[in-house]
């Protein structure tokens, strides 16, 4: 991998003026009568790998949508580097450096891998419709510069042979990788991954785990992970938050969470006397 991606890491490692990179404070979200999130708080620090786990319907994806401002919570606050994100539009959270992948792949199926990744670069590019349509020197230069960055990401994710395919035609595992690439192309400081290994076989899962660790390690990007694969989460997460029915039930290191009685209860149910 050439310098362009790593360069950003050096820029990021300066002194910082904020306490936490992302801070979610006492968020409540209800759809009419249904309480999706009931008082969740957590924070993610620079370069950290923070995982959120919980049974189906616990409100994990809703939390992502709150951070992205797709949903507006009735109560609570989301702070990015100390500044509130409330009231922003989703595209403005992207501009600030929050990237995301989706549980059910949400790539742009008719566009090629390169075009998908370049769309990820959208927030880091400047060419207007006017400059773009006349292909002035600056627009052309920017296209080629960003193509180089995109090619770095393609190398990083080992998807070279697919680069000119429309992503709709690619196998599922590769699409998941392209989606990670599109998020990386946004040059984020926080990467939110919604079930990155759902539906993958063991080998694909291991590949993905390696990429996630590399993102955290080599690129220094903080990762917020939602995942059902407990083996993966326990292996790679620094800290874990467990939610159930929209409520936080435990938070801590993988070891402490594993032995928490509340977590055992949520996942395995309560012991019942058998006659």
């Amino acid at each position, binding site marked *: 991998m050439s310098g362009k991606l790593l360069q950003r890491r050096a820029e990021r490692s300066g002194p910082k003026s904020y306490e936490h990179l992302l801070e979610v404070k006492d968020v409540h979200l209800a759809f009419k009568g249904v309480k999706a999130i009931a008082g969740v708080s957590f924070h993610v620090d620079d370069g950290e790998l923070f995982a959120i786990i919980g049974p189906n319907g616990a409100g994990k994806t809703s939390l992502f949508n709150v951070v992205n401002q797709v949903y507006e919570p009735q109560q609570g606050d989301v702070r990015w580097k100390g500044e509130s994100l409330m009231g922003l539009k989703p*595209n403005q959270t992207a501009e600030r450096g929050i990237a*995301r992948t989706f549980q059910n792949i949400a790539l*742009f199926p008719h*566009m090629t891998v390169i*075009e998908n990744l*370049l769309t990820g670069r*959208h927030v880091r590019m400047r060419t207007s419709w006017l400059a773009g*349509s006349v292909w002035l020197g600056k627009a052309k230069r920017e296209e080629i510069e960003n193509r180089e960055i995109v090619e770095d990401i393609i190398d990083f994710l080992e998807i070279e042979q697919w680069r000119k395919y429309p992503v709709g035609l690619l196998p599922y595992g590769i699409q998941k990788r392209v989606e990670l690439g*599109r998020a990386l192309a946004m040059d984020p400081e926080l990467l939110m991954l919604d079930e990155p290994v759902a539906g993958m076989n063991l080998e694909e899962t291991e590949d993905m785990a390696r990429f996630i660790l590399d993102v955290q390690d080599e690129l220094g990007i903080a990762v917020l992970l939602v995942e059902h694969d407990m083996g993966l989460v326990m292996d790679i997460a620094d800290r874990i938050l467990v939610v159930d029915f929209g409520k936080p039930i435990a938070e801590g290191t993988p070891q402490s969470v594993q032995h928490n009685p509340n977590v055992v209860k949520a996942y395995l149910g309560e012991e019942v006397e058998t006659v």
Partner: protein
Amino acid sequence: MRGRPLLYTSYQADQALLNTTTKKVMLGLLLLVVATIPFQVIPGLDFLGSDDWLRLLSTTAIFVVGALGLNLLTGLAGQVSLGHAFFMGVGAYTAVWLGGPEDAPLLGLGLPIWIWLPAAGIVAALIGVAVGPTAVRVRGLYLAIVTLGLVFIGDYVFRNWDSLSGGAQVGRDFPPLQFRLWKEEEPLIDFTTPGTWFGVEVSGLAKSFFLLVTIAVVFTLLAKNLQRTRVGRAFMSIRDRDIAAEIMGVDEFGYKLLAFGISSFFAGISGALLASFVVRVIPERWDLFLSVQFIAIILIGGAGTVTGAILGSAFVVLLPRLVGDFTQWLQSVALGEGFGSAIANVFVATTPNDFGLVNTFAGIGPGLSVAQLNLVIYGLLIIGFLIFEPLGLYGIWLRIRNYWKGWPFTY
């Protein structure tokens, strides 16, 4: 370095518009053919230089500009609009207000083409952006209905604003394709009368043809460049998955509005050129049928591709002529003798009251007129392409190209 075809050694070469030698050669040949059409020098293609074919080809060039606009909105940004005719009408009437002669009661300021042509696009774009916020709140079928409303509002306004449009069924003359510096009597360049260019005799139609083709080429380049840069990708991302696009940082509302504006700009220019080329246009010209024609162009040509917009325009503009010629030929067969004449007789009427699927005798007897037959064929083609070849003519071309790429080997 010169390597095998499709071997690129720089991103610049890979991203070039004409990234293969074949494309360069073919485009060069095409331009050469287009440039020589009015002079009727290429045997076999000399019929294209006749007046009626030149008129059709010029109309195609005008339609290409409009189709590229709708392609940006519908093909790239995925917003199905039936309001294209309205924006073309706005462009045409802006042109006539600014460029028409100063004779009351008709509105006209007598300004030159370098004012009225860009203004036609700009005014249409401004109106597009003004009605955009209402339109971009809805999507899919609902957007189609909202934009359909525009056509009817426009139709009403154009038919009743007599001082602008000349009145329903009457119309007025539009400013001709003449280049003046200001309001002088003799135009600097007149694209409508015969003359000599660089020592070569050129007819008025040929001059218009060259002007319109040049404009179409310029707009093709603009559309193609827009499509392959940041804004074009933002449009496509909204088309493919709008919520994901927003989370990737694409301002959905803003870009939909922009797509509306740019598309309307193209429509305005196209409308002004069409009216100017046809000279006298009635307000009913800008009706729903024109919008449907553009939707047909996009779908038949191939949605979301610049080549498709061009192929589709040629197809839709030339189809009535081909159908007309075919009907005429059938009629001549039917009037002849033998088995063929019996079959042809079923399809075409030979006398006003004769039965035939197509009846060229206006308004009497059973059967469709040639114009109605055209509508039926558009309809069938749209259905056929949607079901069998969603990428349209461009998709067929891709298939042919990919077949020959490997020929004579399978891979």
